């Protein structure tokens, strides 16, 4: 039986990053991945969705350019080519991960791993079985789409985020069940392809975990793009007639109505992958694996990171946790708090929504004297020049010292400029420095500068 210092189960952004870091700590490392390297994020998550979203943005831009006097002779698009480019991006990144693992002398097994009580791992290589042993194990098995209990759903061939990236025909209409982060991103992708999109969401607003002004702003924009949004609506049954799907939906008053769509995408949340881990009898926290601030599970020498432990299910969170686990497994002592002071949350819709730090209500609940300013992008020269003036920059600060507590941006490129806000929070800059720091003109980030000056009581353009 082959022996390693550290085994990593799962090759997503949690697992492969942990493996590389552990190798850099001087450990002998094995990585076991049942499917493709890169996990959900690379193969059916962040990367393919962002690739398609970029293409959707181009399509939207071209439609917009018509009005600006830039004429194309009729807009045509090839789904096949679009998907081809998406696959190309995935392949290139996968090759990248593979060569990084190689360069760090990490042994990679492509097969499903089952952990035994003694920390040995049985790997199912299809035609072959392999058994290895490691002193320490990092679990990074990720998550998969949740299939809810909707009557009739089991008879229907609906899409999930796992399968929709392989769609080969553009449907006329798409019903998206779930108005969370994943649902609204797909809504934008398909709306740009002229698909009639309807989002059905049980909560009273879309992206309900985010700032409510951001949620309202995004809703306005999505509806302007022709997306129908039914909040406070629950799908109570679903049927599939081969040509179209029929859903019965119910609002909060109990009124029912029928909703027809050619295709259905389920995006109602994700469940952790815990198959193959049963023998460890790990302590759980709800459906997720319970870990402490050092990413240790209830079992000695077993760590867990990423979507499988719940919390913010984001790739950069998984990677940061992977690094912490790898360092601790490699004999160092690091705690989650040292790395998690800021975690940006990004949604790549049109417009984008990005936030970092506390929301207004969180900050208030923590007892801060909150002072906030919302700067509309309509007052920003660059946004107007770009024809992307939807949205705002909201800076939430603490009154006495001007600590930047949180920032919410709705607008184009929000997911890029949020990092300036992250830096301010992480390095503990205050509104005062922000109000003095010269920003390039014209730029979207001037919105920060304006907000900070407004908070200091010296705004020029507000």
């Amino acid at each position, binding site marked *: 039986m082959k022996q390693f210092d550290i085994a990593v189960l799962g090759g997503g952004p949690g697992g492969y990053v942990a493996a590389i870091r552990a190798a850099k700590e001087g450990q002998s490392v094995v990585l076991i991945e049942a499917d493709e390297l890169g996990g959900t994020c690379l193969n059916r998550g962040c990367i393919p969705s962002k690739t398609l979203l970029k293409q959707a943005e181009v399509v939207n831009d071209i439609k917009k350019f018509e009005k600006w006097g830039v004429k194309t002779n009729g807009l045509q698009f090839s789904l096949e080519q679009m998907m081809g480019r998406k696959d190309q991006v995935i392949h290139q990144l996968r090759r990248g991960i593979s060569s990084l693992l190689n360069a760090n002398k990490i042994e990679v097994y492509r097969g499903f791993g089952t952990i035994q009580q003694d920390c040995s791992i049985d790997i199912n290589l299809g035609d072959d079985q392999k058994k290895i042993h490691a002193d320490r194990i990092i679990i990074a098995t990720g998550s998969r789409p949740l299939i809810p209990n909707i009557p009739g759903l089991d008879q229907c061939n609906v899409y999930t985020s796992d399968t929709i990236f392989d769609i080969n025909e553009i449907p006329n209409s798409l019903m998206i069940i779930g108005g969370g982060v994943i649902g609204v991103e797909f809504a934008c992708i398909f709306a740009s392809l002229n698909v009639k999109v309807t989002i059905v969401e049980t909560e009273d607003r879309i992206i309900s975990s985010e700032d409510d002004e951001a949620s309202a702003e995004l809703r306005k924009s999505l509806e302007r793009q022709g997306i129908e949004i039914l909040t406070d609506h629950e799908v109570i049954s679903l049927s599939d007639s081969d040509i179209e799907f029929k859903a019965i939906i119910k609002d909060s008053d109990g009124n029912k109505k029928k909703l027809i769509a050619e295709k259905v995408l389920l995006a109602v949340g994700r469940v952790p992958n815990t198959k193959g881990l049963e023998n460890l009898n790990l302590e759980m926290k709800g459906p997720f694996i319970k870990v402490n601030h050092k990413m240790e599970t209830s079992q000695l020498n077993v760590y867990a990171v990423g979507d499988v432990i719940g919390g913010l299910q984001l790739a950069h969170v998984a990677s940061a946790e992977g690094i912490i686990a790898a360092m601790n497994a490699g004999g160092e002592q690091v705690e989650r708090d040292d790395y998690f002071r800021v975690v940006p949350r990004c949604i790549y819709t049109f417009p984008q929504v990005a936030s970092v730090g506390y929301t207004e209500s969180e900050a208030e*609940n*923590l*007892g*801060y004297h909150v002072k906030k300013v919302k700067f509309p992008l309509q007052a920003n020269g660059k946004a107007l020049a770009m024809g992307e003036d939807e949205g705002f920059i909201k800076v939430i600060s603490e009154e*006495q*010292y*001007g*600590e930047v507590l949180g920032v919410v941006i709705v607008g184009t490129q929000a997911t890029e400029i949020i990092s300036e806000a992250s830096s301010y929070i992480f*390095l*503990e*800059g*205050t509104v*005062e*420095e922000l109000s003095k720091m010269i920003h390039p003109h014209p730029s979207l980030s001037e919105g920060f500068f304006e907000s900070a000056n407004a908070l200091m009581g010296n705004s020029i353009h507000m």
Partner: protein
Amino acid sequence: MANEVFMPKLGASMESGTILQWFKEEGESISEGEMLFEVMTDKVNIEIEADSTGVLLKKLYEVNDEVPVNQVIAYIGQKTEDVEGLMKESLEDERDKTPNDNKEDHNLMPFKEREKIRATPAARKQARDYQIELNEIVGTGPRGRIQLDDVKEFVNKLEPDVKVTPLATKIAKAEQINLDEIKGSGVQGKIMSEDVRPQRSRVGEERREERIQMKGIRKVISQRMIESAFTAPHATITTEVDMSAIKEMRQELLPRIEEQIGERISYTEIIMKAVGLMLKKHRIINSSLQDDYIILHPNVNIGLAVAAPDGLVVPVIKECDQRGLTELTEVTKGVTRLARENKLNLDQMSGSTFTISNLGMYAIDAFSPIINQPESAILGVGRILEKPVGVAGTIVLRPMMALSLSFDHRIIDGAPAAAFLTELKETLEKPIVMLA
């Protein structure tokens, strides 16, 4: 000529002391009787006065250094005096005594080089703490000797100034916190807001654990408790005493004694007196184990557990059996006061042969105290509480008090322990027999 300051021997058993703080800096003048440094022994912390007047020329040891007794730790003399020669002598003395003692230095550099570099002990220690090779430092002392200041300056050059975030700067300013004194928790010691933020307990904020370093008296207590609990097999027996007679007696004595010495006699002193007399009789309870011998002590010296600000201390009241209640009250009140003010000297804390721990001021009835080694037993005193008791066929209320005796079962069997406690109870219930 400069006067040497020695690590004092504060008690018969003291072999070394740890310097807890220096009250003077090098170059500061000091007069005889002024506090110079604080030292910790295995029993107590004591502030030590200077025994000569002059300028503190040199400190040879740093805070937290453990120094054997009678070793030179500093020089006091005239400003212009050169202490190098003197130091050399005392250092050489030291080296002769402990040829292989400076182990860490050996690790720092090859033997030959080490020989060449001249540095004061304090400088060596500082360099070691910062993991700096001495040969990187330029000495400015006589004949190129590296002084503490040289090391400090070297370190300062490595870390030019305090790094602090803008937010932390603002908070520190508002809170009037001196940033030089703050240890930053950020990257490369950068001072972050958390390092200077006043403790606030905000709603919903996750409460953090607080860490108190086990040091000083706390560490001593911890070691002694472990030693006692894990070497001496403890057994505890309890009994209840009717305190009616003692209560009456105390009421009578109270004004008389107060008038004489201005102190109010408490139950503790009366119990101490009774215990003292009983120990004289039951000698095995007043004993210690030393190797293969049980030592029966000729004197009855009772230690009294006192809650001092930094933790438990046990001042000793000697010859309890010999003293009258007035004297006992005076002595006991005196040492407990010193204990609470952290001012006991080592002799006031040594030599006990038995200990009493009185928790009667709390709502404690009985408990199992841990023996104060190397003694063989300890008496726990509970509160006095009116309780229904049967007296000659009727139920009456009586002020009852529980006594708990923990004894070292290696030395004392159950029967003699029980006999002691029984007679103690009888004595307290009929205090007149103390006069017999």
